[in-house]
Every structure is written in C-alpha cells, then in structure tokens.
C-alpha cells in the first residue's frame, strides 16, 4: 500500500503540517489534494496524489520512467489539468483559473527543460531577455535584470555568444537564467541534468541550491541518484502514478 510505504520521518513531517495546519496553509506554496490524472486510453499518470510543499522547500521527484514525474510537473504548470482532485499554488486553486489567467500563473513559475530549449538564433542575452520581453516588461527593466541574472549564473562573459557556442552545462545555465530572471516563486525542473555530464551537473545543482536559498521553492524531477543522495533534500518517489515515498532529507533508493 502506498500509505504504508511512506516512511516514519515523512509521517512525522506530515503530522507537523497537520498540527500547524492554519499556519502551513498560509505559507504553503504547493498543495495537491487527491489529484488523479488520466490520459487517453485510460492511462493513469497520477493516482490520488496528496502532497504539501512549503515555501522555500527543495523537492526531488524520483521514480522510473513513466512513473508520473513529468505529469506531476505539468500539472503544477497548468500544462495539464487533473481529472480529479485540487491543486493549490500559494493558496489558490489553479484548476479554477480561467484560461486567460494561466499565463499570469506561469509568470510565478520558472521552468527548466532537460534539453534547454534555447533559441538558436538568439544570443545568451537575447534568450534571457526574451522571457521578460514576451511578458511585456519595459526595456529598462530588461536591461537591468538580464545582466544581473547572467552574473548570478556565471555567464557574464558570454552574453553575446549563441547557444551553439556554449557547452551543455553553459546552455543549461542560460536556461536557468531564463527561468529565474523574472524571480518566480517556484522553479520547476524536468531532468535538468539529464543531458549533461556528472561533473557539470554538480555546478548546476549548486546553482539551483543557491536559487533555492533565496526562498524560491524548487521541484525537480530527476533520475540522478548521485545528486539526490548528495543533496539530501525532500524526496517524493512515484511509481506507476502513485506516491510511494515522501521523505524529508531523503535519498534516491
């Protein structure tokens, strides 16, 4: 049973959440209540998931391919909507948002892709600026924020380079800069180290950790055992759409 698989540490944490329910609700950043997502052909991607993620937490989503990690992330980004259950972001039910409000929700969520998804014909600076430009930020804001974030990710010297002129790690840093340039409350990362070597991954994780320390909630889907075991952060394990483990300071297993 999924409930029995949740370890004692996690149960203790859940109890804390219950005891401080009123307070946690106020500072809770992400909350899933009995969320089920079914794709065409009755494929259950997520089954009856209930999770609370507080502001500033760093959470790893682990599990084999097809376990529901990407669906979990897509649900948080309102790329998908659940068949059952409710998802709250900063106390708001995102399922009840009108389609026209979804872009405004997404401005509070940064998204990091496994394959970076950088625009080949734009420079590093333009790729990051693009994220602000398309949400209508004034030019003076863009001119101020983009160099600052590029400095944070360590790419100040490569602002005029094109993605093809960068290493995989550098490209992922640009992707992180783009996701974080608007200072979102939440950062979602789908296998951000999946396309880069282990050494470079360490640098990427340091960067995500640094961003997390600014108070940004980070939810990261990963297969990388080494990273999870080293970071020792909260781990939510999925298997065939079910949460089978929710462990504070957990390991990959």
């Amino acid at each position, binding site marked *: 049973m999924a409930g029995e698989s949740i370890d004692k540490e996690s149960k203790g944490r859940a109890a804390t959440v219950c005891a401080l329910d009123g307070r946690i609700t106020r500072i809770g950043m992400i909350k899933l209540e009995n969320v089920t997502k079914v794709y065409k052909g009755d494929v259950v991607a997520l089954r009856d998931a209930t999770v609370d993620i507080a502001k500033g937490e760093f959470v790893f989503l682990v599990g084999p391919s097809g376990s529901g990690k990407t669906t979990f992330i897509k649900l948080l980004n309102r790329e998908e909507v659940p068949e059952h259950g409710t998802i709250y972001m900063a106390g708001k039910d995102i399922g009840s948002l009108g389609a026209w409000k979804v*872009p*405004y929700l997404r401005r509070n969520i940064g998204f990091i892709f496994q394959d970076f998804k950088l625009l080949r014909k734009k420079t590093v600076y333009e790729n990051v600026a693009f994220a602000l430009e398309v*949400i*209508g930020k004034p030019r003076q804001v863009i001119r101020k924020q983009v160099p600052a974030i590029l400095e944070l990710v360590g790419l100040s010297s490569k602002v005029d380079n094109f993605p093809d002129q960068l290493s995989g790690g550098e490209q992922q840093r640009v992707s992180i800069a*783009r*996701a974080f340039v*608007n200072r979102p409350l939440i950062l979602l990362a789908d296998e951000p180290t999946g396309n880069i070597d282990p050494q470079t991954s360490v640098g990427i994780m340091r960067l995500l950790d640094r961003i997390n320390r600014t108070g940004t909630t980070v939810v990261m889907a990963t297969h990388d055992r080494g990273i999870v075991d080293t970071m020792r952060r909260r781990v939510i394990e999925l298997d065939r759409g079910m949460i089978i483990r929710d462990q504070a300071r957990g390991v990959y297993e």
Partner: protein
Amino acid sequence: MAISPRYAVRETAQNLWRNILLTAATVITIGVSLWLFGGFFLFNYAVGNATARWEGGIEFVVWMNPDATPAQDAAIQTALKESPEIKGWTYVNQQQAYEEFKKLFADTPELIAAVPADKLPPSYRVVPTDPNADVVRELSNQFKGRPGVRSVVSADETIRAIQTQADKIGIVFFVGSIILLAAATLLILTNIVSAIKSRGEEIEIMKVVGATNWFIRIPFMIEGLSQAVVGALGAWAGLWALDNWVISGFNDTNNLALLDGFRVTSSEFMQTSVMVLGIAVLVSVIGSAVAVARYLDA
C-alpha cells in the same frame, strides 16, 4: 501588459520574410481575387448606368428638341396614344432629365455646371406591346424626323445582348472571385500555420514563461492582415486601371453611342474600394483566426 509596437513589427516582419515565397503567392492571390471581386461590382455599376434608361421594358426613346413647341409635343403624344403597338410610355421632362444627368455625371461637377437644365432634351420612353427587335425598329422609325423630334434611340438587340452578356460576365467574375477569395483565405491560413510551426519552440517558451495568448497571437494576426492589405492595395490599383483605361474607354468611343453612360461614378468607385478593403480584412481575420485558434491553443 500591452504588446510593444516594436516587438509586433519585428516579429511580423520576421514571419513574413521567413516564408517570403508563400507570402508573395498569398498577396498575389488576394490581389487578383479582390480585383475580380471589385471588378464585378464596377462592371455591374457601369452596365447599370449605361442601360438604366432601358430598364422597366423600355425599348426606345424619342428625344425631343428642347425648344419643341407644345403642338409638336401634343402630336407625338397623340401618335403614342393611338398606336396599338405601344403598351405605354413615360414623359421625362427637362428637369427630370437634368436630375438623371446630374446623377450620371456626379464625378464631373464642372460638366454639370456647364450644362443648364433647359439645354437637356425632354424625352418619351416607350414600351411597345411586342419587344421583337424588328417591330421595335419599325415602330421607332415612325417617330424619326417628325417635327420637334431630335432623335430616336431604340434598345435594339445590341442593348439586350449587352445586358445578357454583362450578366454572364458578372457571374463569371463573381464566382471566380469567390473561389479565389476562398483560396486566398486558405493561403493566409497555410502561411500562418507554417510560421507557427517554424516558431514552435519559441511559442512553447513564450507559453511557459507566461506570455498571454494575445501576445503570442497578435504578430500572426498582423501577418495575415498585412498580406491582405497589400493584396487589397494591388487590387485597388488594378481597379483604378480598369475604371480609367477600360471602362472609360467605352465612353471615349463615339461608335458605341448606345453605351453612352457606361461609366462608374466616383462614389461607386469609392464604395467598391471600401468594400474591397473590408473583404480583405475579413478574409485575413478568418484565415488568421482559424490558424491561431487551431494551432495556438493555450
């Protein structure tokens, strides 16, 4: 937050340039279809103006001299009343003739100013019982040369043939233009879908970072609109040429006296131009809207 004009212009220009051949094909198709569509209306206006006096079954017109005496008028009226071959007739006095003249030459006010009402001939518009061309010709000949009669013009087979052929030509123009407009709409749609697909990754990122649907859509909508407007301008130039070189050419030919009045007034040309532009906007809105609704779902 509103889309910046700089961004909209840059993105639209990039979209248009990326598919330059398809853009050119779209603009040409829109231009030709709107030209045919507008041409249909101009042609109809011109034919209508040229044959207005023959409407209502009128087969010949007896033009009187402006200075014809009442006795001469009375003689003509008596002849018209007594002829069993005449079904009916209408007398158009000088003032009524002047009103028609003013309407017909509305775009040349200097001509209207130069011609006083009392210089225009009154006329009898006659409807015979038998519209057969030979009968009409024979009947109209009876009035030629009578005292006070200036001339007799009959709506012979040429006029009827023109009306019939004009109707057929009009239908061909109209059907052709509708088919081409449908093709133009599909081309706009294809062009925008192609632009959307070639920018798929960019659009995905825009959605992820929180660009609104309208922010994403507007450059594509402007793309469709600019193709249609450029096409409409080409069509307008073509219509101007049609009006000034072809339609006006009929007027300049004295040998086609029966087609006197085959012209398009300024207001008719203006109405057609506005309609062509309106259709262009409509076509672009339909093409763009279908493309973005289908391929840019939130």
